[in-house]
């Protein structure tokens, strides 16, 4: 499965949103209601799903869904997409 599909599925389940409505520019905070504590919790779920590490400074710098997708993709081994 594509990374984008896995991530969208995870967000849909975790945040109870419609994955079809996710756009690159969808804002995690104002559009999806992810506040500071929810971001930490979401980060844990993403780390578990992809077996990666998302340090706090990276997590804190994410604004949009596209930012999150890029952060995940950039931490996966080459060849995974």
């Amino acid at each position, binding site marked *: 499965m594509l990374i984008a599909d896995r991530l969208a599925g995870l967000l849909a389940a975790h*945040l*109870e949103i419609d994955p079809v409505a996710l756009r690159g520019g969808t804002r995690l905070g104002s559009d999806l*209601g992810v506040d500071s*504590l929810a971001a*930490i*919790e979401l980060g*844990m779920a993403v780390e*578990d799903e992809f077996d990666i590490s998302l340090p706090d400074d990276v997590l804190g710098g994410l604004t949009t869904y596209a930012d999150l997708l890029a952060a995940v993709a950039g931490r996966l081994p080459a060849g995974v997409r």
Partner: protein
Amino acid sequence: MLEAIGGRRVAVTGLGVVAPCGVGAAAFWAGLMGPVEPAVLRRVHGWDPGPWLSHQEARRLDPFAQFAIAAAAEAMDDAAGPAYDPDRCGVTIGTGIGGASSWEAQVGVLAERGERRVSPFTIPMVMPNSAGAAVSMRWGLRGPVETIATACATGTHSVAAGAKLVASGRCDLVLAGGSEATLTATNVAAFTNMRALSTTGISRPFDAARDGFCAAEGAGVVVLEELEAARARGARVYAEVAGSASTADAHHITAPAPGGAGAAACMRLALRDADVAPGDVRQVNAHGTSTPLNDAAEATALATVFGPDGPPVTSVKGVTGHSLGAAGALEVVAVALSFLHRVIPPTVGVTEPDPALPLDLVLRPRPWRPGPTLSNSFAFGGHNGCLVFRPVG
């Protein structure tokens, strides 16, 4: 009375309840008539926060806070939309323990998955004030929002605290009560090892064969308003909160003081606060947990205060079990409903009243003409709380 300023009186105008015998005041009242299946743990079976909370909201609230939201919503609906300045509206919803199941779940996460997976929502879900905070946020109430934790007396002390906020003029409306959801594996084992729980699963307050309490969960919340304002808006007034008192045994962490001395002192102070003579009391809603020690001490205290021919005494814990911090609040709801229905609910579960405890124990629903009523709570820690209610003509 209630530290009132300017003769302000306090009305109960809305009732909300989540209990093993029923969710909502009507179901709760029907449940109080019994009978009830024996069960040492009395849970709110099939609990679904869906009518009050989105799934996402519910996920971030411990069940004890979910119960509080549901009970508060019921109470606000029942009070039929009082509109006051939110800066003059408060919340006094307490709990004996707080978010026990959330705590226990995260202890498991720490052990199994390590510290980096412990939820960032742990503290806001475990903290005892989370129920009051959630209620405050739901209705935008910006006055005092405070949490009392006096174990089994929490609900009673919380309603007293809320009534004082109204009586003093600080608040026009207070959502007051207690909530508890603490039947986790660890806590049930702890209660069991205290030898506090019934081994038969029958809660039978003041019965000769009483053998411990049945641990329960739930929440009770009432809307308190200033009486004249409530009347002016045409609210249904269930009862007046006429007085309250709080004392401590300073004796033992779980056992009552000999002869129920602290309890008797509390009852007398509450009656004096309400300006009600013992001989004018028409109902006692007892703490009546069904433990050998509590019921003996309470009966002795009642005899000390009321003499040999005391008023009718009932304990709804025969049905509800003992829901700790919610108990006193559930009993306030029971008293209010006894005024509405003009019936004293029975002490279910009793087959043989203890002959050593001479009480006029109400064993079947008893029609009455509502009059001054004393509601008692006595807690682990030696905390005593009493409330006095009076019908409003």
